[in-house]
């Protein structure tokens, strides 16, 4: 598990106030929404804000389908790295 993935897992737990869940309970390829971790639509909005704040970039509002990067921790880590490199 990369450090970035761990950081994202901790961010999810912290920003969304998840109780009884530790980073080890979230697999990198586990779906965050719906089945899997079971996050809801409001978590999706909150997580979008938290990711931008923590990693200091702005999600490009003109790009389509940015939300696809929020599917799981692994895809989020790839997205965050790419945004930071950009």
């Amino acid at each position, binding site marked *: 598990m990369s450090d970035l993935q761990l950081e994202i897992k901790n961010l999810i737990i912290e*920003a*969304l*106030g*998840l*109780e*009884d869940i530790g980073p080890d*309970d979230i697999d990198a390829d586990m779906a965050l*929404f*719906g089945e899997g971790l*079971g*996050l*809801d*639509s*409001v978590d*999706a*909005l*909150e997580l*979008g*804000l938290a990711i*931008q704040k923590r990693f200091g970039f*702005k*999600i*490009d*509002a*003109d*790009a*389509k389908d*940015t*939300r696809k990067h929020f599917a799981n921790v692994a895809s989020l880590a790839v997205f965050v790295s790419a945004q930071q490199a950009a």
Partner: protein
Amino acid sequence: MSKWIDLQHLLSPALERPVTLEPALSHADLCVQALSLAAGLHARGVRNLAVHLEDSAELAIALLGAWRAGVRVLLPADLQAQSRERLAPHVDLWISEHAGDTTLAELYAEPLPAAALDLDFVGLTLCTSGSSGEPKLIDKTLRQMHAEVLGLQALWGEALGDAVIVGSVAAQHIYGLLFRVLWPLCAGRVFVRRAQPFPEDLQRWSLAQANFAWIASPALLKRMGDNLDWQALARVRRVFSSGGPLPSDTGAQLAELLGQVPTEIFGSSETGGIAWRQGGSLWQPFADVQVGLNDDGALYIRSPYLAPGHTEQTADGASLHADGRFELLGRQDRIVKLEEKRISLPMLEQALADHPWVADARFGVVQDKRAYLGALVALNDAGLHALRNQGRRAVTDSLRQHLSPHCIALALPRRWRLVRHLPLNAQGKLPQAVLEQALYAARTLLPEVVSQREENGEWHLEVDVPLDLAHFSGHFPKTPILPGVVQVDWAQTLARGLMHLPPRFCGMEVLKFQQLARPGDRLQLHLRFDAERGKLYFSYRNGEAACSSGRILLEAARVSA
């Protein structure tokens, strides 16, 4: 600006004006499809049609087609298994994007001729949460809906002009249905097919239009983010918000960014629109709506949006002001709203009580970073057995899974407090304050003392090991046992409450741990202090079996020289 078409005359295949985008659909094409659907429904003998469509143009086709064929449309709020099961007796056919349901296109047949719709037809049934726990079905005539859109057009038609309607909320509810579909259809405003729940998508759709207006909710407006092009978005003709109150700081922030305070709509599935406001705390009733208070201070409504002659009593506490406006003071029943989603606590409690591990359960709202539900759950013997042998996570996971077909993900409790018995009062009720205290409290660190008595300077206590003890999560999470260090700590802490003891802890002697203590055990704790030697003797028993014992060495505080 387009010509207004009354609801009953919407089936006008000669009307050439655009309805929606991507793909584009003209009003004429919409009518042909609706009339084709009407023919198909008629041929199949369908009388009651459940519709759940995320594409609101398809929803419009379904509504107009069904009404032309004299078919009642039920709009379920979601497609959860339990919702479907409950509605099944009322439904002949389901139309949705869900696998196994019928699509519109499968039903199309040689179109029926266009005709005016009957305004007195009970064409719509909304499905929402009732306070008893049973789902509530709310019937509406076309006349009621028509009165609503006429009222909206009179208030804001001119201001909206030719704005394209972009929504963030579903059209399965009365607000989305009226604002995103029926009002634009009558007014000839183009609307975007799908709800855009994310700020970036809302922006992209909006900025692609010459003019636009938003049909939104606090859930989105509170979380817009600073990655948006606010200068461009300030073209928005009007921002509507409904489903729950918009925090005043959000309103003020948006006013700064967009140059307007969002227009909030207050209403419900039962009543339709009641009132509106643009900032401030007071609500202005719609022109034809009369409001009053019953003896309990709860709002009642008379309006053309209700069945003729009907007075709808709400459970919304309110105070009326001399100028006709009113202030809302909170609900008086056990319906709560989380992010504008209406949730019946009794329904969830009944559902959870059906779980084989649960004796009883109560739910409440916990206001943390965001508001969510907490559950106080009394486990039965099987539940205790599961907790002892599989651990807390296995239990809470199982409870979550059991609830998930009964409710949307947002309503699943995020905080679980497990107990053997609900802390009911003498009347057999669980007072709200007690429930909230249990839900807000951190997981406990101490045992529950059931009894205590002194005999010759020695203390005999009975203590229950809490099911929810915080220490269980770290220690063997799948087989929770009471750690020895916690037993020593409890002995010392409880003894200090009962006896005068020297303050300094200096160590321990002859510690023995003979049998595991587990959640739900009732232990007998014996405490004796030998003042001469400065030793606190403790022993825990579980009935006949000795669990642990030892001595804690205590000394007087050192006096510094």
